[in-house]
């Protein structure tokens, strides 16, 4: 049964070890090629003109002067791109975001682009493009946008998901609802009910590498795109579909990626680069500036969330609701829906209802950011959970253990859970030395839980065995942080050969079948499953070749520890054949030895984490410092534990930055005021302590080695863990993230 994904329960030789990564030397010597490190002969420099207005009608664009400038080879506006107005609204939105067609919808929205012989000429050409705008009223705040008299971002937006269909347009693009039971009855049964409103500000993924690509389109309709992306197959499909190209004639090669965290799952400037190349008939390199990255790519939603929880005196939750308003940017998205789904996923609830509102605002299109929407939802829910525990006089861990979801629980978003890690992470937290360590002056300790679904999706891998017995593993999921090492470990394990004999590479779109993106923590989960299946198919071929070499039936050949063995005693004198020996004989036994797999990787096990955090607050300035931090998370099976720890630590650090500092600040004019790393301050080395990790391994029954995704969950608990720590330190409850010094100081002063 080569395609049986069930957990085997086997013991491991390679999986669980910490070898060096195959791309490591290149990355410490400066040889690795990222998005901006690649050039094509004769390439031009592409630059984009962006709107200075939050909301305006484009009355006229005069490009004549720019076109006449010496060295300018192409000038592009939406008029040069296919008009998708009458087509699929999702595709229209995607292209409209890359290049505004009739209106600019946020500060930074692209309106025109140029390709020129060098950067100086391209910049000069942008200045020569004259855009006539009719400025429209704008709205950037999510709570303002839902008010009846708010300026309309899109006058054709009628709320989806409500009956009857509204007769008037609004900024609420869609409403979704999840839950079960009778929440009204549940709240009546409660002894204590707490209801609070929370706000989280917009944060950016903050990848250090700006978006970069080199595009080349030929007159015969074929094209090449070199790009930093989390999903080159998806980029290929979207770019080709938007530009009217044949999908298979556009070959996309993914560069090494300098961070993505969800932000490089969406296309931004790539269709523009391709269209410029098509128009100029030359390759075009387009690299965003940091200012462009902040203004026109990425950020996660700003949110406003109401949470209400009712509880019995014995600590049993009787009902829970959440109403989540997520700013979506100017286009419909799914972020409130994901917030609604994740809100109460940690708990076993009889009565629960969550409702998500996708709200249009004049800000950049909201993008996926690591466990998208879950951190904001968890901030709200875990804060109220903590407050209830305080009110009941119960230990916050014990209160959560009492109400935690377990195997068989019907989750708040629908499915019934299999074996899950929320209970074990809480038990581990209870017993962790961090929980009982002494605290210093002005310090408080908090904890919180987090959940993420994890995705599977379409996955395709190849294994090719060289005549020297070394193995190339070709995958199509982007390696964002060490996955090639993990995937090679799994294939080495399955084939029974040393890790050093396997080299994992990421294929371009011309040399492997479709792969979904590296998102939803699916990279290692799905590509390891596909890799294991490809290895099993390879073993089948190796067995057939051994049978041929021995001239015995293949049914009498087994595969053990990297060797073909003849079964039983009737072939007693046959020494086992190693993979190397079979590979060497391959030219005479049927040609190249290879194995493939094409799957939809179902059964991604859900992921849970519990975080513990000590924070010290300076009561005079309101500045907070994290003094100790512990992440406890279920990995299913940690294939390469060092990179699993790295995911735990990195997610926690991003959550800490969001909790304490990071936010998009808009002026009254609707312009972003801090589009740079100086004023949008992500945590630096001196802001953080060591981040301790504890990996739990509750096997995922739907993966041969028990693997679960590990990449995202770690960003979910920090916001609430820190707010809970501040509450325990000072008796003030912060309900607005980031909990920056002015907000903390205000809260402290209000209490005093």
């Amino acid at each position, binding site marked *: 049964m080569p395609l049986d994904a069930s957990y085997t329960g086997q013991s491991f030789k390679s999986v669980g070890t910490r070898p060096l990564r195959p791309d490591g030397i290149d*990355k410490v010597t400066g040889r690795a090629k990222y998005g901006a490190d690649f050039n094509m002969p004769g390439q031009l420099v592409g630059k984009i003109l962006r709107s200075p207005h939050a909301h305006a009608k484009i009355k006229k664009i005069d490009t004549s002067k720019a076109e006449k400038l010496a060295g300018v080879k192409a000038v592009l506006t939406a008029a040069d791109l296919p008009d998708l107005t009458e087509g699929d609204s999702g595709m229209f939105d995607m292209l409209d975001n890359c290049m505004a067609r009739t209106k600019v919808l946020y500060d930074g929205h692209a309106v025109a682009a140029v390709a020129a012989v060098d950067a100086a000429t391209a910049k000069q050409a942008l200045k020569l493009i004259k855009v006539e705008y009719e400025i429209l009223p704008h709205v950037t705040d999510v709570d303002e946008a839902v008010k009846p008299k708010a300026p309309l971002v899109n006058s054709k937006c009628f709320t989806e998901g409500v009956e009857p269909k509204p007769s008037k347009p609004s900024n609420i693009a869609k409403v979704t609802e999840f839950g079960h039971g009778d929440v009204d009855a549940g709240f009546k049964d409660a002894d204590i009910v707490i209801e609070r409103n929370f706000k989280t500000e917009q944060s950016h993924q903050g990848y250090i590498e700006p978006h970069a690509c080199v595009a080349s389109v030929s007159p015969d309709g074929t094209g090449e795109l070199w790009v930093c992306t989390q999903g080159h197959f998806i980029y290929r499909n979207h770019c080709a579909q938007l530009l009217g190209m044949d999908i298979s004639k556009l070959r996309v090669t993914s560069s090494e990626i300098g*961070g993505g965290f969800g932000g490089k799952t969406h296309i931004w400037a790539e269709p523009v680069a391709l269209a410029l190349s098509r128009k100029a008939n030359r390759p075009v390199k387009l690299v965003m500036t940091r200012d462009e990255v902040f203004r026109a790519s990425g950020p996660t939603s700003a949110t406003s969330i109401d949470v209400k929880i009712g509880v019995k005196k014995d600590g049993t939750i009787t009902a829970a609701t959440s109403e989540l308003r997520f700013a979506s940017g100017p286009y419909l998205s799914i972020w409130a829906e994901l917030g609604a789904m994740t809100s109460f996923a940690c708990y076993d609830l009889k009565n629960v209802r969550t409702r998500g509102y996708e709200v249009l605002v004049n800000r950049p299109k909201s993008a996926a950011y690591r466990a998208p929407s879950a951190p904001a939802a968890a901030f709200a829910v875990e804060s109220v959970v903590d407050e209830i525990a305080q009110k009941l006089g119960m230990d916050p861990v014990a209160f959560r253990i009492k109400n935690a979801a377990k195997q068989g629980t019907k989750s708040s978003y629908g499915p019934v859970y299999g074996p899950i890690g929320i209970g074990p992470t809480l038990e581990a937290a209870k017993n962790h030395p961090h929980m009982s360590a002494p605290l210093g002056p002005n310090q408080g300790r908090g904890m919180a839980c987090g959940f993420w679904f994890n995705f599977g999706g379409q996955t395709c891998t190849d294994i090719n065995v060289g005549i020297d017995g070394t193995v190339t593993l070709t995958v199509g999921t982007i390696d964002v942080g060490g996955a090639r090492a993990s995937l090679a470990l799994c294939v080495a394990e399955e084939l029974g050969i040393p890790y050093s004999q396997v080299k994992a590479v990421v294929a371009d779109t011309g040399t492997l079948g479709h792969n979904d993106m590296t998102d939803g923590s699916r990279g290692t989960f799905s590509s390891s499953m596909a890799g294991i299946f490809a290895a099993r198919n390879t073993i089948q071929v190796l067995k057939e070749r051994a049978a041929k070499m021995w001239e015995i039936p293949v049914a009498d050949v087994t595969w053990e520890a990297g060797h073909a063995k003849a079964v039983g005693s009737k072939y007693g004198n046959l020494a086992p054949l190693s993979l190397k020996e079979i590979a060497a004989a391959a030219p005479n036994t049927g040609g190249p030895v290879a194995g493939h797999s094409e799957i939809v990787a179902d059964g991604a096990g859900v992921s849970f984490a519990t975080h513990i955090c000590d924070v010290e607050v300076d009561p005079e300035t309101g500045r907070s410092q994290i003094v100790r931090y512990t992440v406890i998370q279920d990995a299913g099976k940690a294939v390469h534990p060092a990179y699993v*720890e790295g995911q735990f630590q990195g997610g926690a650090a991003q959550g800490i930055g969001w909790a304490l500092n990071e936010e998009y600040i808009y002026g009254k004019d609707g312009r972003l005021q801090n589009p740079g790393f100086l004023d949008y301050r992500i945590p630096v*080395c*001196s802001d953080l302590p*060591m981040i301790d990790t504890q990996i739990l391994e509750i096997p995922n029954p739907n993966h041969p080695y028990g693997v679960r995704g590990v990449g995202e969950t770690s960003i979910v608990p920090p916001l609430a863990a820190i707010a809970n720590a501040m509450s325990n330190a000072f008796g003030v409850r912060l309900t607005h993230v980031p909990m920056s010094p002015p907000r903390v100081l205000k809260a402290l002063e209000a209490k005093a």
Partner: protein
Amino acid sequence: MAILVSTTVNGDHVEFACEPNETLLDALRDRVGLTGAKEGCGTGDCGACSVTVDGRLVCSCLVLAAEAEGREVETVEGMADGAELHPLQKKFLEHAALQCGICTPGFLVAAKALLDKNPDPTEEEIRFGLAGNLCRCTGYDKIVRAVQDAAKEMRGA
């Protein structure tokens, strides 16, 4: 009018012509062909373009290419001694101190500059010494440990 610059990069004599307003980062990447230094921000906030000029740690996006005249520039490409990695490079790999790796060249150059001045830094000195370099993947934990371990090895301790 282009300026002709004669300089030393990683011990090699290098000459290039550059624009007066061209940064050292652009010259290194586009004219000298060394793309190890990265542009993460172009404003000196992220440290991904860190190099040393006459031993002094700088953001090469804030230095004019013309200022390299007659100086000695060291980049990440010059850290290894042939096939032998610098202890910092080795320890970054062993400790899994990189995930995406885009900030790694800058961190290595900055860490080397730190250890050249202070061979036995405390954790706090490492954290403040590397505070000019942004990493979004690791949370810095494994980077600090790698630098501690490399410092120890370099001291022969």
